[in-house]
């Protein structure tokens, strides 16, 4: 998901860190609010708030709560309980559509999150109202709370489901920046249809001992693991 956010915030979203309330901005909602750390890092790098704030992530008294908070500059919607982002996204997109505004509404969902029925209510709604200003990106890492998606509650045929709901669907390697950039600059994929990017990802990508491991949904690295992970990710010390 970090790759998706990097491409969105650096090259796709029309936002202005100096004017977080600029009315013509693109909207972005991180519906999988548990991935707050990634969003906060992207917002800090994009200049919405000082990088130093990140040091106090999830600590008492910090603005950067464990789940995404709208009290943080640049955040549109607080999330944390799954299945809330897409419906709100539909409301924003409908307001813009009916007022013939040109900005877009982006939302990132997880694949496990698609167990929530509210997403499918919203999927019906977005297609019915021809909200082609919506771009939903599913971070499909095939893992969820208790295990693999296909073991917990099978989503396949996943892309077909979205197509059946009359979304324009594209699949992409969710770690390939160039491919993501190309795709996200082609929206809407089809006029009058909301766009769905099914981004195939690997949880913990780039860190050998974290990749595709469910346990790292819950764990925090100890100092040794952190340094090893950063080394693998190519951070210069």
């Amino acid at each position, binding site marked *: 998901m970090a790759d998706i956010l990097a491409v969105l915030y650096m090259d796709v979203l029309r936002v202005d860190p100096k004017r977080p309330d600029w009315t013509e901005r693109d909207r972005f909602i991180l519906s999988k609010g548990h991935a707050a750390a990634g969003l906060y890092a992207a917002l800090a790098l994009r200049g919405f708030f000082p990088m130093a704030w990140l040091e106090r992530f999830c600590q008492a008294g910090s603005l950067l709560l464990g789940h995404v908070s*709208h009290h943080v500059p640049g955040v549109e919607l607080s999330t944390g309980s799954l299945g809330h982002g897409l419906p709100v996204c539909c409301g924003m997109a*409908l307001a813009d559509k009916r007022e013939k505004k040109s900005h877009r509404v982006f939302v990132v969902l997880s694949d496990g999150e698609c167990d929530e029925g509210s997403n499918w209510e919203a999927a019906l709604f977005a297609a019915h109202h021809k909200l082609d200003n919506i771009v939903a990106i599913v971070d499909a890492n095939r893992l969820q709370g208790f295990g693999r998606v296909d073991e917990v509650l099978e989503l396949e045929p996943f892309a077909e489901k979205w197509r059946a709901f009359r979304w324009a669907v594209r699949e992409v390697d969710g770690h390939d920046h160039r491919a993501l950039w190309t795709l996200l600059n082609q929206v809407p994929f089809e006029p009058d249809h909301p766009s769905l990017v099914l981004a195939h990802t690997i949880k913990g990508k780039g860190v050998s001992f974290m990749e595709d491991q469910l346990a790292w949904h819950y764990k925090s690295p100890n100092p040794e693991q952190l340094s090893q992970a950063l080394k693998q990710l190519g951070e210069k010390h």
Partner: protein
Amino acid sequence: MARQDERIWLLTGDLGYSVLEPFAKEFPSRFVNTGVAEQNMTGVATGLSLSGKIVFTYSIANFPTMRCLEQVRNDVCYHKANVKIVAVGGGLCYGTAGFSHHATEDLAIMRALPGMVVAAPSDALEAAQITRLAITTPGPFYIRLGKNNEPIVHANPPELHLGEPVCLNQNGGEIVLVSTGSLVSEVLQAAEVLKSLGIEARVLSMPFVKPIDYKKFLQFLDGCRSVLVVEEHTAFGGLGSAIAEILAEAALNIKFARIYLPEFMNFIGSQKDLRQKLGLDASSIATRAMTLLTKN
């Protein structure tokens, strides 16, 4: 109001047939039937309000509140979104429809939510005022409506203020009868019954179950020694609970009783019949008031 304020939108969860058409016809760009999908309706309402709109959501009984409770809490309340939830058929309006359609815990549930205003107009005159207040008061607002052409209880259009009770008669000081919503009309009739027995009863309509202006409420009790709260709601967390909290905190030497609904209702009937069966009709209310007055 929608003619004067272009921010006003109306969403319905596919209910309101023969009621909402005039709005839909006059303001098609600000009307959406979101389908039978209350979670999405509430999320859409939040999204619209975060884009500057004042959004009314509309459905029957528990559908716009409980079916989408978490959307109301996390999306609407936490973001202080300008979403006004309208439930038609509060209490036992849909008496014959059965348990699913009895909105009998809604006041408690909405009252518990952060920043939510909870209103229940006693008649059409209060409903009009409450609608105006919902539009001018920023943030979440719940309106529990009746349904069956409730009798008008006010002689003149009242001027409502957020949180303030309204005294419907200036009777003297033996007992105060307190209620909310369309049940106020039964309470007014109960006061008439009591009057015929030589007992003066003051009647308070509580258009707002939250917030309640404590000071104003206590002023209306001046000189009274008994308070009876009557509500079309269960015993837990509704108007009776709210008044009990106020009285306990004020540590008044006052007698207090409530009439409320049982937790389970495994029977149906018209609202009128159910009120009679459950002791919420004028005559039962008057009898309960007498008992309270004679209690030491």
